[in-house]
């Protein structure tokens, strides 16, 4: 399991970093700086040359380790089986896509996973916002200390943190022991662990600090003078928040939401550990076809379907919300 955890987490973090970066780039200040910078050519290379030179390593990296594997996976999903060399030419077939849609349970499970991701993302964003707000406006000089404390658990292994939840929720775990000690229940509650609820609770815990970071970044950029101006114009604290702070932090809020939502749709480590027999998510099915069944083509088709549907959902959401309008 260890290797899988690493893969999932680094993948999630890469995506998280990308989402955070794009959110930061969308900030008004960055835009202004960018526009001003582009006008002034400087140095022998010129502004454009330096830009291309500096972006070469990440572009090459992404092409080799992100675009190429994705293209390979897309190709595999049209391949009948793995017989023969891995790179041999093959006649494309749609049988795996047919199999995905014929077994209706796969598509339904994808729907369940999307719903779970939606719940996790909404709750996490809602819980992370006050946290970030406190750090940005109320914590004062201690903000740095609190931020470090918030992130301390994340220097331990993801696996360890999820295992800790097993001990919390298990039938002889912390919650059951406390409830029995207090006399609230006589028998341990079996419903705490090994179901989708346990997966959602664990994922919420895991994501909160990550989601707080982009919100904190957005809130830190809110000019105090704007709030003073709002107060001068007669705005009481609730309307200051609703009409100044919240709209200005919206890009960070959205970044946090997608940062959590997108990787959670394909999550598979947490369900293995706390999900039980009926707690599998769509990602578990994909993982099984790759690592246990040795059926890469079907696994690839399942992954491509998930990719397409998640992308479509994000595009629809972005169109509906129009984040660029929010930052004006």
């Amino acid at each position, binding site marked *: *399991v*260890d*290797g899988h*955890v*690493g*893969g999932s*987490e*680094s993948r999630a*973090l*890469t995506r*998280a*970093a990308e989402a*955070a970066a794009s959110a*930061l780039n969308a900030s008004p200040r960055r835009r202004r700086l960018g526009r001003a910078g582009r006008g002034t050519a400087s140095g022998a290379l010129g502004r454009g040359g330096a830009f291309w030179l500096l972006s070469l390593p990440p572009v090459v990296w992404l092409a080799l380790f992100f675009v190429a594997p994705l293209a390979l996976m897309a190709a595999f999903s049209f391949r009948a089986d*793995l*017989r023969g*060399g*891995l790179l041999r030419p093959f006649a494309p077939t749609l049988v795996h896509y047919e199999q995905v849609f014929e*077994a209706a*349970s*796969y598509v*339904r*499970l994808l729907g369940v996973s999307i719903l779970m991701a939606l719940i996790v993302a909404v709750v996490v964003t809602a819980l992370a916002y006050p946290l970030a707000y406190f*750090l*940005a406006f109320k914590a004062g000089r201690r*903000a*740095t200390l609190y*931020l470090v404390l918030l992130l301390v658990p*994340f*220097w331990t*292994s993801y696996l360890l943190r999820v295992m800790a939840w097993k001990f919390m929720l*298990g*039938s*002889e775990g912390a919650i059951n022991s406390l409830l029995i000690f207090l006399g609230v229940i006589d028998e341990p509650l*079996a419903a705490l662990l*090994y179901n989708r609820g346990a997966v959602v609770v664990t994922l919420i815990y895991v994501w909160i600090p*990550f989601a707080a*970071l982009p919100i*904190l*970044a957005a809130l*830190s*950029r809110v000019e105090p003078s704007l709030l003073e101006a709002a107060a001068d114009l007669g705005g009481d604290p609730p309307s200051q928040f609703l009409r100044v702070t919240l709209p200005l932090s919206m890009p960070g809020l959205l970044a946090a939401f997608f940062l959590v939502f997108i990787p959670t749709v394909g999550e598979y480590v947490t369900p293995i550990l706390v*999900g*039980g*027999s*009926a707690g*599998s998510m*769509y990602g*578990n*099915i994909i993982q*099984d*076809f*790759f*690592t*246990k*069944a*040795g*059926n*890469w083509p*079907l696994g690839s088709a399942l992954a491509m379907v998930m990719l397409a549907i998640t992308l479509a959902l994000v595009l629809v959401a972005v169109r509906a919300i129009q984040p660029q309008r929010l930052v004006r």
Partner: protein
Amino acid sequence: MSRLDRLARLLGLLAALSIVFACAAPATTTQPTGTAAPTEAATDEPTEEAPTEAPTVPSTGTLTVLDWAGYDAEDFWVDFKEAYPDVTVNFEIGASDADIYAKMAAGDQADIFHPYTGWLHFYVDEGLVEEIDTSRLSNWDKVPDHFKEIGQIDGKQYFVPWDWGFTSVLYRTDKVPGGIDSWAALFDPAYSGHISMWDDGPGAVTVSSYVHGWDETAITPEQLEEAKQEWIAQREHNLFYWAGEPELVEGMAGGDVWVAYAWQGAYATLLGQDVPVAYADPKEGRNSWVGVYGIRKGTPNYELALAMLDSKLAQATGENVVNLFYYGHANEDVMGGITDATLKEAFSIDDPGILDRTNFTPNLTAEQRDAWTAMWAEVKAAP
């Protein structure tokens, strides 16, 4: 940009980087400590030999083994280490049978690899495995015929059997006082919420075919559909599907799991922890799986690889497999020499008929494997 803002970004980046690096750190190729590396290549050695004699085994060189985590420990090749102290043995680690197969199919250059029954056909079909010259194995006589046959495909010996074990129903005797005499116990609602099945499609098909008396090598689509429906129904009684033995041992020791599909390693571990458990001798017969070693077709180190497989069958290595992992070993002298009461119990050593009543896992074709694993995925994905 405020100081806090900058710090938030820096910390986020650091956290991301640290996790990425932590994940990237475990390299796939490990070289065990204590193997002082002789660097001369084996191919430089003159290989002149008398035509009547067996080819000489070079005393230096490098051998690469694609194996499962844990088997890279020197305990599991100690006889080779003694006989060939100047040969460097490198290990690559495979995470599952599918992983090992994928690596070999992708052109992995390991000289020796370690698949389990169920996966052997693929290596022969794809021309990835070299035939074993058994006349060169000094320990071959100590391997019982029924193990030898498992490594034979199309009448040729492609694999050397090595580790093996039982699969049966393991249960808590305090929670199931009446005992268990059938695989059907895994479906019994009487144990609802306290059953744990292995997370594996072929394993599930095996259980279904034992219960219904089907021929496991000729499962029809109708039978597969019936198996799917009964495992979907079983899911509401199943607490969790175990992926690794420690997970199952923890569940049984903690009292959450009463009845489970299990290998005898879990049985021996729980006996060692004084947990009240028994290992069923079901009326349909136990199941047994066998791990084998194969030699990659086209390896330049065939002689050394054979020497490694021969020493894998030797006494000290075999005893380590039995004593450290509680697995069986293909050398019958090793099994006959077991004195530990727990281990004798785990392998039913005192029951001479046990292997005759045991069903060995058959080799699957690619079509069977794909159909059975897809069946299991649909069980897990079912509403």
